[in-house]
Every structure is written in C-alpha cells, then in structure tokens.
C-alpha cells in the first residue's frame, strides 16, 4: 500500500517530521516500510505553455511547434502528438526534467518536450499531450506538487483495517510525532432516504449506506485529484469513480457509484447469490455465482458482487446524470471466500477481508458529498441518507493493571501517565485509577484487531519503542532438558556414515506418478498433493528410493564412483488420519566399473555397523532390483530393510548398491550392552573343515548347518574362503572349540571333528 506524504500531512496539525524520516518511524512503530520515493519532483519545473504555431514536418507524423512557456521564453519543440495544434494550452517539460534533453529530431532542433498526462505522472492518459482549459504560460500545473511516496508492506497491515487508508495511517504518524490528528467532518443533511435498502443477512452485511445524487456531470477529475490517485497507484477514470477511489484510499472505505438510471425498482437488496446466478462485472467479465457469494441486487438481479466488484451495466458512463453512491460493510471471511473462489482480488476485497469498520460508511458518504460538489459542479443530493445498520456486538472494555503491563514488557519504571498518553494518542478511551486501567477500543480497531489486554501491550510497547526496554536475562529453573533419544541416535548415525565415506544428500518429500510407477510403489499408499504448482509434486514419497535413483543417475555423469546417503521420512497414507512418517536411511555405493560385488559387501558391512548382529537373507527381487542381488536385512528375527543392486535398466551407467533401512525398527531392536562375560581362562583348539557345495549354495546356509552339527563346544565358526575348481565348488571354515572350566583334550577335539564330518556327510 502506497501512502502520499502530502496526503498524510493534510490530516495532521503541524507535522514537522521530514519526508525522509517518515518511513523509518513507521517501520519502527507501526508497520514495515518497503521504500520511500520522491514523486513528481518535476512538478516544480514543468509549466503551462501555449502552442503558438504548429507546422507538420513533411514525411513524418511530427510537427515543429513554437511554444510560449512563460518562465523559459519561447521555445521550438518537436511534437508527435495527434492533438498538437496552435492555440492550445499544454504542459512544457524543460530539458533536464523527466529525462528530456535538447535534441535534433529528423534534423529539427527540439528544446524540451510537450508531454502527455502519462508522461507527467498524472494519469494513464497517453493519447496525446495534456490539454488545459485555462491557465497562464509559465505557471505551475494547478494541484500538481512534489511529494514523497511511502510504500508499506501489505502483509504487515493484515491485522489493521484502519491502515488501508491515509487517515488511519495519519493517526499513527500523528501519535508517533506527538501532533494532533485533524478530525473529519461527517455531517449529512437530514432527509427521506432516496432508496430502500434490504439486508437479508446482517451477519454477512452489517451495514449498507447510500446517497443519491442528480445533475451529475461525468468528466475528467481536476489535475490535483488525478495526480494524487496516480501517486498512490490508482488509475484516474472519471470524476465520479475517482471520488470513490479517493475515499477508499483516504478512509479505507471501499465505495461504489451506480448509474441510478440503470437500476431497476426503488430497492437495493443485499443477499446471497442463487446457485448459478450470473453477474456481469465492470471489468467486462461475467461471473457465475453460488450461495457462498453475496450480491447487491436490484429488481432485475445482481448489480454487483458485494465487496469485490461492481456490475457492468450500471457502471458510470459519459451519459450518467444520476448516481447512487454505496458505502457498505461486509463480513470479512465471506468476501475473502468469494474473492478467492472467483480469483478476483480487488482494492475493495483486499480491504474488506481485513474486517472494516461499519461506523465508517456514513463518514465516507459525507466526505464524498463534499468532494463531489467540488468535482461535479451543480451536483445535487436527492433526499437524505439511506442506511440499514445492524451494529456488531460491542467489544467489552479491556481491563488491566499497570503492574501486569510492566511485567509483560519488562519495563519496571513504566508509569500510568505514559500508558494513558500513548493509548489516548491512538484514540483509545482510557480510565485509570491507581494503576487499574479500563480501556475502550475505537470502532476501527474493534472489528478484529484489539480485544485483549495483550493487544494493548503491543500498542504501549511499540510507542515506547522496544529499543527503550532494558534487555534482562530470563529467570528460569536450571534443569537438564529431557532429550529425545532419536536425536542423538540420528546424529551418531550421520557421523558414522560420513566416517565411512558417505556424503549426505537432502531430497524433496515429493515424487511424481511416473517415479512411483517406475519403482512399482502402489499409488494408493501415497498421500496426494491437491494443489501442486509444479510438476513432480503430485505425491508424497513412500520411499526414499525414487529420488535416490535420480541422485545416482545425476552424479554418475560427474563421478566414476561415489558414496552418498539420505536420512528422510517415508510418508505412508492412512486414510483420513495423519499419515505414518517413518525415518529411513538410504545409502548408496556406486561404481562405474567393476562387478558390483564389492559395493554390495561394503554396504553389508555398513549394515552390520549400524545394526550390529543383523543378518542378510536373499529375497525375491523387486522390479527395480537386480534379480540375483537382492536381500532383506534382518535383526532379531525382524526385517529392518533391504540390500540390493539397482537393476541395470534403472542405472545403466554402472553398479549402484543400495542399503535401505527402517530406522524406527533399527532403533527399537537395538540391544544395549548387558552384564559383562568373564574372560576365557582355558586355551581353545581349532580345526578347519572344507565342505563341497553346490554351485549356488549359500554360505549362510552352510554355516547354519555347521552350527547345528558342531555342538556346544564350538565357540566360533568362521568362513575362510570359497574355492571353485575342476571338481566343483567348496567352502572352508575354521571351527574353534573350548570349554569354560577346562582345557579340552585331544580326544574331545577329535570327537567333535568326527561328529561335524559325519553331520555334514563328509
């Protein structure tokens, strides 16, 4: 929202804060200022000028003119405007202003420029140079003065309906500067309402006020009004519409003017739309409405979408001679829903959705009458105010005591007089006895913004200035914080992984349908994003693997080999309940060359360091896994994850081994160290066994069989090596025997050995 310094200053008695300072003051005390810009500095130099002669330059659309500029003398200026002609009064811009230089155009000297309203920053009008009805060459353009524009971040005004107009902001600046705010007169002559108003739902529309005028002349606004609207980013249209926009920018009260001759019947109805009802709007669009939208209707149907946009057919046009001027108040949430649904955010809807003050409507109409009489000479009010008002429930006075306010701010020396002065400067009503405050809230702060004593802490705090509080250490109990074990677990895990050479990646929580389908992840297991704005965001990931696969293929373009990991959450749908979020580890060891076995065994070893005691069992491969290189990882009889190599169709450039572990399970199944076992006191004996095995026998199976057959004296059975020769494949193992209470005799060792040999059929 843009604020004009000049406009603010008109509302404050004796403002002396210089324009350059005002943005900073507003930032520190009220709302964030995004920028302060000089506006219309050229108005000091641009003059009214009379075109004395205008001769076309052959073969061009240009004319060479001789111009009486008063102050700067008679100048030769080349002009391309179609309306440029001898005798007219227009604006002359001397060289050095608005980027104008002394130049030669088509070989003709041009000293300065004749300018359009757009070039002058007065309006959007650019169909020719500006034309004045009256004026003296050399005079400044009436009503055009240099200004400073302060831009305030709209987000920081979300809670302040009153700051969407200059008068409200002027109240803040007046309070900050310690100057009085000038009141706005709201007097209207009494008279019978010139229109009947029927509000069907007072919750959605607490107030609808209107005035009717006749003998209206629709014409361009005077320059001062056009320029002022332009300076705060509103386009001047015609005098009637400009008055409504001016008051919206001044009092934060959106208004609408109807061509009264085009309204049917003598009654305005505020009601919810019928299902499928159409409303042609003044932006040329026709909107299809439903019962969630509020409309302003006459006997013929909707003439406007309440609080959002006026209707097209009843818009003000050149032939308009009577108008109905609306200033109403609507329920914020309803306006916001309509504006969101129609994807139509207007200056009006933006204000109404902040909960505007219903008290404001009549004040705006009174001010509009005063302004219309200036810009539409001869205009006459017909009858009196039409006003249907259903006041909002009053905000109860807020009570607090000084001690509480001091404690909240942390300012023990805060006085009752300071609090009273600050609140009064912001138009709160204050009654105080012995530190007990009773505060009444002005109507424009009472719609939503201020209702609690905590809200007043902010009012007092910001006006004192937070920089004037003395920082103090909080007094809190010294306790050891309870720390969830997962955090230290995950931190240790990450350190283990980097120590083993793995680099951490972060991937998005999103996957797209193609990614899920490629890995055969069931769609129904996914939570779906209803409103993705970009591709690739349709689903929440139920596996880290789709994005890990992408990491592999991306990095394979840059590296011969690499190791990486991600710790992230799988998100599994559970109907309407919050989904299950399971932390997973996905670790990758990739090599462009080699047979991939080393990568898989490296990850198997990694699994053993993360989940000590885990075993790996071959599993039926999933579609994306190498059909003969897929296994489940098991810890204490429970599957905790998978170890596999990506199918070559998934990763074509090399071998990518992956370990995917469910970290919730790993943590749950971990065992803490128990009581220690006394160290062995008697020596052990060992012997080796070589077992002929089938081509694809699993070492794990042979080992398990040996364990079964070796008996209780076997302390350890270790795989030594695998041998493939002409006579087939064999595996060798070393079996270590021992007893806790004695040294085994040679006979005992031989007995175990024969027992093992016969058990294995050797």
């Amino acid at each position, binding site marked *: 929202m843009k604020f004009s310094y000049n406009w603010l200053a008109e509302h404050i008695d004796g403002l002396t804060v210089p324009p350059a300072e005002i943005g900073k003051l507003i930032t520190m005390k009220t709302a964030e200022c995004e920028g302060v810009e000089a506006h219309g500095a050229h108005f000091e130099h641009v003059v009214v000028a009379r075109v004395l002669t205008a001769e076309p330059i052959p073969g061009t659309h240009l004319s060479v003119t001789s111009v009486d500029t008063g102050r700067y003398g008679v100048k030769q200026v080349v002009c391309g405007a179609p309306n440029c002609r001898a005798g007219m009064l227009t604006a002359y811009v001397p060289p050095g202003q608005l980027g104008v230089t002394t130049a030669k155009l088509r070989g003709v000297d041009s000293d300065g420029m004749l300018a359009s309203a757009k070039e002058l920053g007065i309006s959007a009008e650019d169909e020719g140079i500006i034309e004045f009805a009256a004026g003296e060459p050399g005079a400044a353009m009436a009503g055009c003065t240099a200004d400073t524009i302060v831009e305030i971040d709209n987000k920081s005004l979300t809670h302040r309906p009153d700051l969407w107009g200059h008068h409200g902001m002027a109240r803040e600046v007046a309070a900050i500067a310690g100057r009085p705010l000038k009141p706005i007169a709201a007097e209207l002559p009494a008279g019978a309402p010139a229109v009947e108003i029927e509000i069907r739902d007072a919750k959605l529309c607490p107030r609808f006020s209107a005035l009717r005028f006749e003998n209206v002349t629709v014409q361009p606004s005077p320059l001062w009004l056009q320029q002022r609207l332009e300076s705060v980013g509103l386009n001047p249209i015609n005098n009637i519409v400009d008055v409504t926009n001016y008051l919206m920018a001044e009092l934060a009260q959106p208004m609408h003017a109807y061509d009264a001759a085009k309204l049917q019947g003598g009654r305005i109805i505020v009601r919810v739309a019928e299902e499928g009802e159409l409303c042609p709007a003044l932006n040329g669009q026709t909107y299809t409405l439903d019962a969630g939208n509020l409309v302003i209707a006459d006997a013929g149907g909707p003439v406007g979408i309440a609080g959002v946009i006026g209707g097209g057919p009843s818009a003000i046009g050149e032939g308009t001679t009577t108008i109905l001027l609306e200033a109403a108040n609507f329920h914020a949430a309803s306006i916001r829903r309509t504006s969101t649904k129609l994807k139509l955010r207007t200056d009006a809807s933006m204000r109404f959705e902040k909960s505007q003050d219903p008290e404001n409507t009549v004040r705006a109409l009174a001010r509009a009458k005063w302004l219309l009489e200036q810009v539409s000479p001869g205009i006459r009010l017909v009858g009196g105010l039409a006003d249907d008002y259903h006041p909002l429930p009053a905000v109860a006075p807020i009570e607090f005591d000084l001690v509480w306010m001091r404690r909240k701010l942390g300012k023990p020396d805060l006085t009752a007089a300071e609090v009273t002065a600050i609140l009064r400067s912001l138009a709160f009503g204050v009654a105080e006895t012995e530190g007990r405050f009773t505060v009444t809230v002005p109507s424009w702060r009472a719609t939503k913004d201020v209702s609690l004593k905590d809200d007043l*802490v902010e009012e007092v705090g910001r006006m004192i200035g937070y920089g004037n509080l003395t920082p103090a250490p909080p007094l809190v109990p010294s306790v050891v914080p309870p720390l969830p074990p997962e955090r230290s677990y995950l931190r240790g895990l990450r350190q283990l992984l*980097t*120590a*083993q050479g793995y680099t*951490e*990646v972060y991937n998005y929580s999103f996957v797209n349908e193609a990614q899920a389908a490629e890995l055969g992840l069931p769609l129904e297991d996914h939570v779906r*994003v209803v409103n993705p704005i970009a591709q690739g965001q349709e689903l929440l990931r139920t596996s880290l693997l789709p994005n890990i696969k992408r990491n592999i293929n991306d990095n394979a373009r840059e590296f011969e080999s690499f190791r990486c990991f991600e710790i992230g959450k799988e998100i599994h749908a559970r109907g309407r309940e*919050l989904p299950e979020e399971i932390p997973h580890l996905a670790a990758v060891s990739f090599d462009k060359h080699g047979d991939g076995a080393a990568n898989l065994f490296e990850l198997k070893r990694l699994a053993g360091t993360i989940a000590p005691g885990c075993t790996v069992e071959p599993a039926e491969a999933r579609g994306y896994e190498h059909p003969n290189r897929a296994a489940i990882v098991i810890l204490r009889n429970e599957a905790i994850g998978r170890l596999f190599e990506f199918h070559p169709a998934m990763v074509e450039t090399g071998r990518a081994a992956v370990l995917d572990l469910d970290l919730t399970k790993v943590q749950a199944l971990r065992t803490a160290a128990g009581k220690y076992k006394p160290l062995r006191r008697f020596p052990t004996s060992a012997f080796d066994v070589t077992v002929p095995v089938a081509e694809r026998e699993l070492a794990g199976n042979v080992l398990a069989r040996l364990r079964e057959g070796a008996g209780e004296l076997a302390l350890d059975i270790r795989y030594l090596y695998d041998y493939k020769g002409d006579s087939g494949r064999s595996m060798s193992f070393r079996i270590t025997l021992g007893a806790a209470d004695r040294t085994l005799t040679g006979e005992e060792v031989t007995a175990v050995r024969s027992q093992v040999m016969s058990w294995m059929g050797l």
Partner: protein
Amino acid sequence: MIETQLSELAAATAARIAAAATAEELEVIRVEVLGRKGRLAEVSKDMGKLSPEQRGAVGKQLNAAKQTLEAALTARKTAFDEAALRARLDREWLDLTAPAAGPGLGSLHPLTQIQAEIEDLFVSLGFTVLDGPEVETEFNNFDALNIPPDHPARDMQDTFWLSNGHLLRTHTSPVQVRGMKKLGPPLRMIAPGRVFRNEEVDASHEHTFYQLEGMMVDKDVSVAHLIYFMKTLLSAIFKRDVTVRLRPGYFPFVEPGFELDIQCLICQGAGCPVCKQSGWVELLPCGLVHPNVLRLGGIDPEEYSGFAFGLGLTRLVMMRYAIDDIRQLQGGDLRFLTQF
C-alpha cells in the same frame, strides 16, 4: 701333533668363515666345525689319548679356537643379518604420495551441520529438542496458532493441501502446540525441521526449506527477556557480538509480534548493498505467545507467559556459506555437497 692339527683347522675355518657368502654357508661351517659332532668335538674326543699335561694345553687351545671361531661366526652372521635387513628395508621403499585406498571422509549436509550446532547451543541453555510430523492437521498448523479459516494471514503462507484433508506444515510452529501439550509449563523447547510452501522455485525461492521454532514459557516472561535472549543466542550463532532491534510485526500466534533485525554484519550498520543501505537485516519473527495459543496448549495465560521465535535455518546456511542458489541445497549434487 694334535696342536698343529688344531691350529690348522682353526686357521682354515677362520678363512672359510671370512669367505662365506651367505648365512646358510655359515651354518654349514658351524655344524661341520662347532657342531655336536663337528671337527672340534672330534678333537676333544681324541684328547682322552693325551697326557694330562698335554690335555691341559690342548684344552686351552681348543677353548680358545672355539671362542675365536664362534665370535667370528657371530660377527659374520650379524653382518649378514644387517645386510639382509638393509636390503629388505631398501626393497620396501614406498611412495607415500600415492593415494590411499578406500573411501575418504564423507560430508554432512550443511543444513545438518548448522542444525546440530544450533541445537547444541539451545541444549546448553536448557532447551529440549522436539520433532513434529511433516504432514500436519489444518488445526495444528493454523487454527491452534490463532489463524482461523478465512483469516487473511493464511495468504501469507501458500499451502500444499493433501488428499487426506491435511496439509504439509507451512512452518515449524505447530510443534509449539505439540510441545506445550507434551511438556507442560514451565518449558523451553526448540523444534527444527522441514517446512513447505507452495511456491515456484528459483534461485532464491524454495518450496521446501528448514526452520527452527523456539519457545520459552514460564512465569513473567517479558519482551525485555526476549530481547536479551535473542541477542545472546544470535551472538553465539554468529560468533560475535550482535546488535538487535525489535519492531512491530504481525503474526497471529504472538501478541505483541515482532520482526527482529540484526545490525548488518557486513557494514556494521553504516549501510551497504546487503542491507539495502539501511544498516539492518531482517532476521526472524518473534513475539510473546498469544494467550489463545497458550490456552490451546493447555496453559493458563493468566499464570504463564512466554516467547516464541522462528529461525530460518536455510537462510542461515546461505548466509554462512554465501550460497547464491537455494536449489543446490536439495539438488543432490555431490560436487556441491562434498564441499562442506
């Protein structure tokens, strides 16, 4: 006679020892001459035939020869051993500039690093660290934070809505609600984590980023406490004394709400392009916890008050490492990630 034999043997053996080329040859000589059945043993056997006088003289001579030869053998053997060791050591020349086998050290993601560092700071100040789900209820993400449906503040946070009726959390603030219910007052907690905004991605905008929510609830927590605390904390994070200021900011879950600025660390407040000549950099939103939020967390606002703040971890990482493209943080490019 025997004396002559002995001295000839001793001389010949000494010559052979001197001429031996290997330790093995020495061993052969030792066995042949000094062994249990060697030549010297034979001589000593023959001594029985000698007279006692002769026996004494020959015995002396025998011992002397034995000692001399043994010494010569040992010396020669030592020389061979030393030479062998020297040769081995020489052979074992190694090029230690060649690369080490096996993986080097991996890297932790910069966000992990900064998060751990900040968590440790908070833990040292008595804060507990909580985690919350990425998918949240609309109630926890908005309503419980004093942002009812159709509140314009919902526009500030473009939301990913989900098919299950829930949403991806737009901030870590919902963990405030979970934390209050879990811990009860008084409490100190932080909640770092991943948050989502439905935005187009470019070099400075991401739909996925990291925040750290912090909250302290106790009796009589004031704005002055908040200022002190943030200054202490930020000085620790930036590892230098920082100057902070509070100005009004609107966030429905705090009242009063603030934007906290720090004096620009580049220009010390003089004004530079980084701070847009203002001397200040907007860093984080904070405020006193709104009484409605306390109440929804099961805490009586008449008895307790608190402050809360939200620290942008992604932003801190980008500031610290001068990262100019936010997309790199979740791009999975190891050329980027191995730098940290």
